[in-house]
């Protein structure tokens, strides 16, 4: 059995005003990947290619072992997909939707669906058009989860949810992974959600993947060093510096290849390391995007 649930190899897609270039992506089975990008970075296009909704111009895509888009019908039986532009029938109730899905998906789990309705505080007899935005998102998520899919693909699942609903949704996503066979890919620009529940993190900007790694490695290799320099000493040249800020004698260096040995290296060059700050995923993302965009324009 293939232990990668999603595999993109050299995937490109070109539109007149936007192109996705040479995307490589690997998502191991049993893990959660957070897919982070600014608006218009290419998150949704990538997800649509994954789902076979958009066909790539180049490269190969395999999802749960199926080549896409050729084998999409078979793959989709095992993928639960929720996106913002997905519409449920306004005039029908949530219960109607559940009855509609049940015969289509062999693994449909009605007791789990009932439990989710309770946890998400949804009334199955209520018509979809009477639901708030947050309730609609939760209803769509319920319909996807109760199918017990091997792969869940969620485009911005927490956008527009209130804090209580967000915690409920994140909790159910984690619970869905309990048996190690299931995999989740979710896109978000809420870096806090991604930082909390993801095992793997991928940054996308302007149609290219700019960084992708295991979350702990990711957070470990980015640091901000606050230095103090004696007069006439230059800022030390350290590996992986993406940004130099601060003032002349008190520079602040941002590195993406931090190692503890850097501190003694700085001391040897005459600089004092006053502090080593960890960075949040949001800070890392912004620094990453800025440094890459600067390099492109330079």
């Amino acid at each position, binding site marked *: 059995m293939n232990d990668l649930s999603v595999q993109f190899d050299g995937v490109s897609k070109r539109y007149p005003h936007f192109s996705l270039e040479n995307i490589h992506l690997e998502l191991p089975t049993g*893990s959660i990947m957070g897919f982070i990008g600014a608006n218009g970075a290419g998150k949704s296009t990538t997800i649509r290619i994954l789902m076979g909704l958009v066909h790539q111009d180049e490269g190969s895509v395999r999802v749960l072992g199926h080549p896409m888009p050729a084998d999409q019908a078979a793959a989709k039986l095992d993928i639960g997909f929720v996106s913002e532009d997905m519409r449920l029938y306004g005039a029908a109730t949530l219960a109607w939707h559940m009855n509609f899905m049940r015969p289509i998906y062999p693994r449909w789990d009605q007791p789990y669906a009932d439990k989710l309705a309770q946890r998400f505080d949804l009334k199955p007899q209520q018509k979809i058009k009477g639901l708030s935005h947050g309730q609609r998102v939760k209803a769509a998520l319920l319909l996807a989860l109760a199918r017990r899919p091997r792969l869940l693909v969620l485009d911005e699942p927490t956008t527009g949810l209130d804090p209580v609903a967000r915690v409920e949704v994140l909790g159910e996503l984690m619970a869905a992974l309990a048996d190690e066979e299931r995999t989740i890919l979710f896109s978000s620009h809420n870096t806090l959600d991604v930082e909390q529940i993801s095992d*793997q993190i991928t940054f996308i900007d302007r149609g290219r993947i700019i960084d992708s790694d295991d979350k702990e490695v990711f957070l470990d290799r980015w640091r901000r060093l606050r230095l103090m320099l004696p007069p006439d000493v230059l800022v030390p040249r350290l590996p992986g510096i993406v940004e130099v800020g601060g003032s002349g004698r008190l520079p602040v260096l941002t590195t993406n290849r931090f190692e503890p040995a850097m501190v003694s290296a700085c001391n040897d060059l005459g600089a004092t390391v006053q502090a080593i700050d*960890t960075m949040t995923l949001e800070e890392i993302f912004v620094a990453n995007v800025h440094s890459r965009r600067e390099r492109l324009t330079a």
Partner: protein
Amino acid sequence: MHSNIIISQSDSRPMYLQIMEQVKQRVAVGEWAPGDEIPSIRQLAMALRVSVITIKRAYLELEREGVIVTQHGKGSIIAPDPELSSRLYDEEFSEHLEKVAKLGELLGLSSEEIARRTKEASNRLNEARLTKEIV
């Protein structure tokens, strides 16, 4: 076993360090005894709504420090070491002492002065306790 570990969003330290610290505190105060079974990586991940990889990292480091023992396929237990609780307290004490030494050095205090001030602090603590008993 219920975990009730709390991850703080406003704590700037990485989540795995917060988890390690709380496990150690639980062992130090004796809430988790040597040999006790602790939640599996996936159970704790779900309970805390934190990624599996973060819990894995915390457990790996705890194992390296000899606080827990992970048996393959069987889950993890608190290391069956009767001295564990006192060792963890002792390590915490050493950490604080090192901070004191460092701050003292920054203030230009000699090691004799640092020792004298430490003794004074401990005297003050005893006096405060005595006055409380009298009142």
